[in-house]
């Protein structure tokens, strides 16, 4: 896999089918689904529990707006991921172009996915810092790899945005 800046886009080239599949899973991973822990992390409380009025108002007025914001980001990412439908050669490496205008949406969606996965699996600090864990023996290991891979992409996007500003 190779990532580089190409005009007004970031290009991820030579994307193998495994990593392409992980990228395809971003929108799905960003949804808390049945995980109360993920829901709680993505929509965390704005104040201590004693501030009952504030917390109640927040749920009514702010959380729906946050939901819309997060959904809009994942939809943008979903559109970009359409490029990964390699129908003619399903196991061939492919290229993904992320327009610079979409980088904020990507950062947000990647963050949603990382936080939701980490909350669902309750990864410890030690696990999250273990970037060389292998092999991927079960779903938990794969999810940890997903969190780290998405983090790597975030880092790259951030570096490019910084260079651009």
């Amino acid at each position, binding site marked *: 896999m190779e990532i580089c800046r190409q005009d007004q886009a970031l290009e991820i080239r030579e994307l193998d089918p495994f990593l392409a599949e992980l990228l395809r899973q971003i929108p799905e991973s960003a949804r808390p689904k049945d995980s109360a822990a993920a829901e709680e992390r*993505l929509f965390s409380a704005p*104040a201590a529990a004693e501030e009952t009025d504030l917390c109640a108002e927040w749920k009514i007025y702010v959380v729906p707006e946050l939901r819309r*914001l997060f959904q809009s980001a994942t939809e943008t990412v979903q559109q970009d991921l359409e490029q990964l439908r390699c129908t003619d050669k399903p196991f061939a490496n492919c290229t993904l172009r992320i327009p610079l205008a979409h980088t904020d949406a990507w950062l947000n969606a990647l963050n*949603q996915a990382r936080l939701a996965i*980490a909350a669902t699996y309750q990864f410890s600090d030690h696990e999250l810092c273990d970037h060389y864990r292998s092999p991927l023996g079960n779903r938990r290991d794969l999810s940890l790899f997903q969190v780290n891979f998405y*983090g790597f992409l975030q880092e790259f996007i951030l570096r490019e945005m910084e260079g651009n500003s």
Partner: protein
Amino acid sequence: MVVFSMRRRPREYTYSAATVILDGPRAAVETPTIQKQAATKDEIQTPWNVVVHNDPVNLMSYVTMVFQRVFGYPRERAEKHMLEVHHNGRSILWSGLRERAELYVQQLHGYLLLATIEKTT
């Protein structure tokens, strides 16, 4: 920068909805009752802190970028707060009026940071 529109009811008053009673050709509307929840002078003047809490998942570079964007802090100041969060578990990013503090927390939640407001002691 992400800017949210706030569609929240004013904090100072709670309104009970006017009840419309349809009775034959005439419709009577009961006067809404307004209960005033007066904020004391102290409550209005007490500054609120915007606090960001540590989170092992969010990247340090991402948190720094968010602080720069939301508060307009220069990179050095944003990094100082990020490191404070990282080492001490929390950092006070801003203090001031409650409405503004709430707006900041809302923006920080839009970036998925763990942020809260709290009264200064």
